[in-house]
Each structure stands twice: as structure tokens, then as C-alpha cells.
């Protein structure tokens, strides 16, 4: 692809985004299904489990979140397996902006602190409100911001508005990394996922993220495949490396390993690092720990041997 990136007016963006190759849904599902048959065992499984743990943004985004809950989660993030110090820490703790301070108290600088912002999850608020939301989270100590795009504007074809919001939020982030949530469950078609991915990357995203986790379907292998293809092609086009975060609905080690295979065979080993791939999850961590314990001890583990936080 040798085409100039467009200016960010809606018309010009539309021509570019609608000129990207379409995605055949059945074909993409077929590719995903085939990669889902990869059998990852023994040493490669152990490698994948540890890598997956290191890629987790351990998440709680509930109205009922309290300082106590957030402290417990943060402690878990640092030391997931109390019985096994070799279990690695996760990549980040992900909370609402008003909980950032609590996380920082517990984790210091040892893991990242990601805050959702911009009227998460719906994104239905003025730009001013979204920017204040962002600024406050950054001021509280978040070094990663997970924003949501304006899906209403996107589906209405107002690409310029979506673009401008991302640019503004990126500015408000300062040094913090920006993850842009596409909310693929509302975009519905893989063509839209491809277009939204490109839009977000051109507007300055450091990561593109599938979902808020509050809308079903959340992350799925096909949307993740399309997003991985987008970051691959974006790198070929610009040289920049953008990360991908799959969030919501990934509960088992088996699922997580399937995603790692997707990454491996779509964009290659350069992306097999928490700097460029993340899982937004909560229950997943325990399942990974159970599998890890099984591999270490040779017998199946049980729920009493992992902590509930």
C-alpha cells in the first residue's frame, strides 16, 4: 500500500477509510477457526501462560468499587500467586479514574496504572467533560488512559469528529499512553473494525482496544484478527508500532493462548510483549494460575489454591 495518509476532515477520511480492503466475514472466521486448532503443549504452553499473565490489565470497573476492593486487586496484580513467587506480575491495573490514587499507593511504579476515561463506557458526554475526566486521571497518577471513541459519530459517518476527539484526548494524556477503545460489539461489522482501527491509529492511539467489556459481544478472535492486521499494515505504511488490547469475555487460559497464537501468526513475535499486546480481564488471571500450578505440580489444582479478590 503506498498511499498518503489523508488530512483529517470527514470527507477525506471517509474516502480513505472506505477505500481500505473489505473483510470477508466468513473468510476471517475461517482463518480464526483454523488457528484455533493449534495445539499448544508443554514448554510452549508454559511460555504462553507466563506471557499471558504478564499481558493482563487486571480490571475492576464496577459502580460498587471501593478502596478495599481496589487495594486487594492491586496486591494481586503485584503478586498473583501467593504460593509461587515465580509467577510474574501483570502488566497493569485498570480502574475508574477516581480509584487511580488507591492503586498507586499499593503498586508504586511496579506495574502500570490504567484509567478508563472519556465518559466510559458510553462516551456520551461533551468533549469538555471527556477531557476533564482524562486530565484528572492523569493527575491522579495514571500512566495509561483507556478512552472510548464516539460510536454514535462513527456510525453516523462523522469520522472527523471521532478523529478530533482522539487527538484532543491524546493531548490531555501528556506522557500517559493512550488506548483507544473501539467498542467492536457496537461497530458490528469487521469492515467497521478495520476502518475504526485505522482512524484511531492515524489520530495518535498508542494501543487500539476492542471493548469496554460492558457490551456483548466484547473481544472476539475475529475482531482481534482484523485489528492485528490493521496494526501490521500500519507499521508497513508508517513504521510505527501500535499495540492491541483484547478486553472482555476472555476467561480461560485456552482462550488466552488462542489469542497469543493469533498474534504470533498474524503480526509475529514483535508483538508478543506487554508493550504491544494486552488482555483486559479479571477472571482470566486465576485460570492462568491454575494451569500454571498444574504444569508445575503435575496434578489438577482447585479454586482454593488461587485467591479471590
Amino acid at each position, binding site marked *: 500500500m503506498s498511499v498518503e495518509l489523508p488530512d483529517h476532515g470527514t470527507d477525506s477520511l471517509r474516502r480513505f477509510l472506505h477505500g481500505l*480492503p*473489505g473483510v*470477508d466475514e466468513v473468510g476471517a472466521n475461517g482463518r480464526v477457526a483454523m488457528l484455533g486448532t*493449534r495445539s*499448544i*503443549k508443554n514448554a510452549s504452553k508454559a511460555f504462553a501462560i507466563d506471557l499471558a499473565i504478564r499481558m493482563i490489565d487486571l480490571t475492576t470497573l464496577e459502580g460498587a468499587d471501593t478502596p478495599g476492593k481496589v487495594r486487594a486487586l492491586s496486591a494481586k496484580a503485584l503478586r498473583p500467586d501467593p504460593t509461587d513467587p515465580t509467577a510474574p506480575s501483570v502488566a497493569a491495573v485498570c480502574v475508574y479514574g477516581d480509584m487511580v490514587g488507591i492503586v498507586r499507593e499499593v503498586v508504586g511504579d511496579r506495574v502500570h496504572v490504567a484509567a478508563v476515561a472519556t465518559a466510559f463506557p458510553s462516551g456520551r458526554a461533551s468533549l469538555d467533560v471527556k477531557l476533564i475526566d482524562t486530565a484528572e486521571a492523569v493527575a491522579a497518577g495514571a500512566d495509561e488512559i483507556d478512552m472510548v471513541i464516539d460510536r454514535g459519530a462513527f456510525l453516523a459517518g462523522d469520522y472527523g469528529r471521532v478523529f478530533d476527539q482522539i487527538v484532543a484526548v491524546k493531548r490531555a494524556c501528556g506522557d500517559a499512553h493512550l488506548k483507544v477503545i473501539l467498542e467492536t460489539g457496537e461497530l458490528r461489522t469487521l469492515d467497521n473494525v478495520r476502518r475504526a482501527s485505522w482512524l484511531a491509529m492515524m489520530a495518535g492511539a498508542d494501543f487500539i482496544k476492542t471493548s469496554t467489556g460492558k457490551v456483548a459481544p466484547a473481544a472476539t478472535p475475529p475482531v482481534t484478527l482484523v485489528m492485528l492486521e490493521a496494526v501490521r499494515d500500519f507499521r508497513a505504511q508508517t513504521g510505527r508500532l501500535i499495540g492491541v488490547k483484547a478486553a472482555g469475555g476472555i476467561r480461560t487460559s485456552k482462550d488466552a493462548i488462542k489469542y*497469543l497464537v493469533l498474534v504470533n501468526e498474524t503480526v509475529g513475535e514483535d508483538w508478543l510483549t506487554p508493550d504491544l499486546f494486552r488482555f483486559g480481564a479479571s477472571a482470566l488471571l486465576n485460570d492462568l494460575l491454575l494451569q500454571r500450578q498444574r504444569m508445575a505440580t503435575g496434578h489438577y489444582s482447585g479454586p482454593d489454591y488461587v485467591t479471590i479478590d
Partner: protein
Amino acid sequence: MAFEYAPAPESRSVVTIASSYGLFINGEFVDAKSGTMFKTINPATEEVLADISDAGAEDVDRAVAAARKAYTGAWGSMSGRDRSKYLFRIARLIQERSRELAVLETLDNGKPIRESRDVDIPLVAGHFFYHAGWADKLDYAGYGANPRSLGVAAQVIPWNFPLLMLAWKIAPALACGNTVVLKPAETTPLTALAFAEICQQADLPPGVVNILTGAGDTGRLLVEHPGVDKVAFTGSTEVGKAIQRAIAGTSKSLTLELGGKAANIVFDDAPLDEAVEGIVNGIFFNQGHVCCAGSRLLLQESIAEEAMEALKRRLGTLRLGDPLDKNTDIGAINSAEQLARIHALADSGDEEGAERWSPPCELPDTGFWFAPTVFTGVTQAHRIAREEIFGPVLSVLTFRTPEEAIEKANNTPYGLSAGVWTEKGSRILWMADRLRAGVVWGNTFNRFDPTSPFGGYKESGFGREGGRQGLGAYLKEQS
């Protein structure tokens, strides 16, 4: 950090292979009167799997006689409803033994276990299920009221999808009330012999299905036997023509499914990532041992460079190796002979000036292997654009306009299949309308189904297998 996949072999212990096999005639395994045997090997390791009987003229006589006896006896007078129930039994048994059959197919043929497990064996069961349901509904199939069967069918099948080709032949033949004598390919007899056991487990009346293992001569004797009413052959175009010649002037019915050199056509508005998958699937699925393989890639010139980059990048992720490993994408070439043929044709590509490329690929020391290979700069006049290679070798040509794509695609004596990739609906249908091919895949490739008729135009053969249309090969129409 590299993510290496540890070996993930499917267990061999699910299957038991005898040291030697007789012929399956009249419901029993019997020694061949010919007295000669040959070996079948695992093409990935060259290990001998079993000794196989080589049916001679007397054996062919016995088998045809058994089929005739069953036809004039139990099977010929059986109601469609009862035939249907036997076929349902067989379908169920195949499902029950599916893991075992998949492993056996991989050992004898060399194809990856993922393919035999996920594609071949499920389709085998599907064919028996589908045709089981036709047996008592032939009045509604469009061949007149009470269409009659033909009699004894001689069926000769190739080595590329051994059990699936058996299903394509036996299921409709039996559903329509015929009896069969089937000869599996010389290099892949084992799943046919397992199928014979399944017929025993299903209590199929003796003589309805007979399996004669052997080489080229066995096939010729069978096809030319005067006691045979119908001949069905899938294999090379050369042998197909010889069979058509041999039965001229007889009253034998004939259907042929022969070679192909399919064009896989990619337009500038194709969904590129899926098209690349379709290209890869089209020529590297089953190591390219597919009559309908998309062996000629026609790229619209404006996106040719971009598409080739994407294709080469994707080929770099193909995993070649132990067919029993669940993560293997490309398995072994079926025989030393076939490997030599592939080499010879690929070398002609070099000699004629096309540019060869393969991803870096480590080939195991034993067994028969060929790295996935792409030739660019190919034109219609090159041998590698005209002759069927039947291996993992892709020839890439370009075109400018839809009309030119049609011209180039149709400019071949073959006409089995074609692929078209474009997001524009009217163009898909326009191309499908004009492509002279028995199967046209739009925005997909290598899809098969028991309900979907399969077969060729021109020198790719005549007759269809699957669907309502496929029944015609085994029925006598009132006319």
C-alpha cells in the same frame, strides 16, 4: 521473543494396522488368487505400514461375480427404505470411528492430521448421511418415477482423498440400488480396507461392497470386465481418456472426474487478507494434491505487487512437517513418483524463465517433501501454466480487465473449478456466469459438501458427484 510450538502429535495408538491384508470380496477378507502382494508405506517416514494384496484377473472375476450375485439377490430386491437404513448405519460407524480413520488416513496418505480430522472424515460421514436419505426418495429426484439402478459399478479412485473419494463413489451407488467393486489407489489402500470392516460391522449383505486392492493393472481389468454395468473413475486425465476409449462400443455407463488447472482470480477490490487465505488454501491445502486446486493465480495487475507481498508474508507462517502433528499445515508428498513429477514440472518453470520463490523451509531427512513454491512472471505459454502439477506449486499470472481474466481462465482444455475474489456482487456473478468450470468459488475456495454437485467441464471430465444431480450417474432414466 519467539513463540515456538512444542510438538503436539496425535496418538497413533487409536489405530491398529494389521501386518497384511487380503481382498474384501463377498463380505469377507480373502487371500488374492494372484498370490502377489505389495507394500504400502507412510510417505512422511518411508516406514512400511502393511503388506497389501494385489488383485489379479481371477480376483476381479470373483469380485464382480459377488457384486452381481448381491445385485440380483438381496440388494437388488431390497426396498429403498432398507437400503437407506444400511447407509445410515455406515454413516454412524464412520462417525464413531472417526478419530481412528483420520489417523489412518494421515499415516497412509501423508496429509496433516488437522485436515483428515477436520475436513476429510467429517465429509465422509456427511456423504453417507446425505445419500442414505435419498435411497427411499428416488421418485422425487427428477429422473422419472421409479428410476432403476444400473447394476454392478466398477469404481477406481485416486490417492489424494482416499476415504472421501470412496464415499463419493460408494454412497450414491448404493443409495441408488447398485452394488460396487471399488479399487483404491495403490499407495493408499488402508482406509478402504477399514471401510470394509465397517461394512461388516454394519452387517451389509455380502457382495454389495467389494474392495480390490492393487495397482494400475487391477483397475484396468476391473473397468474392462464384461460383467460391469457402470464405470466411475477419478484420477488423471490420461487414464480417464484410456478408460473412455476402452469402454467405447460397450453398453457401460461412464462418469469421469479428471484433472484441472484452476484459475484463482483476484481483483483490485478483493478482501485482500481473506483472498490471501483463499490462495493459500487453494494450492497448499492437501499439499496441492487436489484436482480442483487453484494452481493458477490471476492477479489484477494494479494490485499484483501488494498481493504478492501479502502472500509471501503469509507463506512464511506455513508449518511443514510431521503429518501427525496437530500444528502441521503442509504434510508429505504421497509418493516418490509424485515428488519426481513435481520436481520435473517445477524445474521446467525455471527453464522457461519464470521466477521461483519458496519461504525458508526445513525438509525432514526421510520421507517425500516439497516446500511450498510460487512462480511469478508466468505466462499462458509456460508448461507450469498449462499442465497439472498436483503439488504445492503456484503459478502467478496477471490480467488487466475482467474480460481478460475470463479469457485467460477459460483458455485451457480443463474446466474443473475457478475462484473469484472481489467485493463487487455483480462482478462475482458476471464472472461466475462466464467461467467455463464445473465449480465456481466466489470469495472462498475448496469448499465441498455432499449436497453440492462437483465435477468438470471439458477435459476435466463429465458427470457430477453430490447433490440431486450426482444421482444421475447411478440411475437408468426412462427415455
